[in-house]
């Protein structure tokens, strides 16, 4: 399963300043957003994980979009990823 991840608004600073990532996940498993966040922490996050995650959740102040819609509309952590999904993380915590 292929999923596109995009980090912006300053969130990319935690990922080696790389905004766009395309990842492949084993398709035989089901992938919830919760599981994806853990995967990101273990595989992509370069520094200061506490600035991206707070417990199992993304840190408050980081917005998440699933296929260009607010993840609060699709169940947040419980959302189940589909092939070719586009997930966007935008930090609101940097600069005013």
């Amino acid at each position, binding site marked *: 399963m292929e999923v596109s991840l995009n980090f912006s608004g*300053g969130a990319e600073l935690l990922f080696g300043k790389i905004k766009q990532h395309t990842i492949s996940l084993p398709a035989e498993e089901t992938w919830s957003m919760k599981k994806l966040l853990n995967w990101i922490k273990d595989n992509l996050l370069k520094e200061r994980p506490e600035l991206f995650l707070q417990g199992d959740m993304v840190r408050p102040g980081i917005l998440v979009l699933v296929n260009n819609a607010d993840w609060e509309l*699709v169940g947040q952590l419980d959302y189940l990823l589909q092939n070719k999904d586009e997930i966007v993380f935008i930090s609101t915590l940097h600069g005013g």
Partner: protein
Amino acid sequence: MVVQCSAGCGCNAVLKRPKTNDALCKTCFYWAFETEVHHTIMSTKMFQSGQVVAIGASGGKDSTVLAYILKHLNEKYNYGLKLVLLSIDEGITGYRDDSLESVKRNQEEYNLPLTVLSYKDLYGWTMDDIVKQVGRKNNCTFCGVFRRQALERGAILLNCDVIATGHNADDVAETILMNLLRGDIARLQRCTSHITSSEGSLPRAKPFKYAYEKEIVLYAYFKKLDYFATECVYAPDAYRGHARALVKDLEALRSTSIIDIIHAGEQLAIKDGVKLPKQGVCSACGFVSSNVICKACVLLEGLNRGRPKLAIGKSNKALAEILADRLANTASLSSVQDQF
């Protein structure tokens, strides 16, 4: 699972509004967001036709969206305002130089005149130089005090009538909590107003006072507005950081918390007879100050003497006295002592 726009327009929703929990589509969101800002401007009589408005532009998300929206509303509703962009260059290599590039792109795209004023020109010091003197602990004190005054000076230079800043609802809630925790009653009262004006200084307007950061950022995202987001290379204000984290945690628990804090802050009234610092003007530079010598002048004096720590420690009283003395303003010396 697709959620429909709750306005009943038939489109798919793209966001859940934190203030109301409505699910809206892009078009309905733009409309709601713009109309609310327009309403804030109209209901508070924020601007008058014919005024020149300086938009404090940092290149970041809030001021970028503010410039875009003010231009849009000014045309749509015939406010009759002349809008100009005003940027302050603190002189922070790797931070402000990059964000100024984004302001310059906004200037071209929105076709608004831009003026950049630097700390170096105004005070003779860049933030990089100041950090070399004071280290990384108190830099934000210098930076914040200088920026506030720099915007004022720039706006006067440009013959502006009012300064509009991108302070949003999250910022206001955060400032309310900070002032509450510090017991700063004077600021607590001032920070909730949509427009602050004091004798001798330009009014400052906050058209985004009720606009959530989430919506500002999503507005910029969906409209593909170009802004700059990074951290200042110098450690940011830790106290503000804690207040910010608290606001964000509260929002995650219940998204209306932010607007509730603002409403609560607006309702706070100060008991009659409580002594508040009087706003006057600085006898050295003439800008508004609640002390005889303003904070910016005291800080600058400390820097120029090569004793910056004097200006932030307890001894700022002594420094202010020296300054007042030099101005031969002996009459106000006693009030200097009063106020520090």
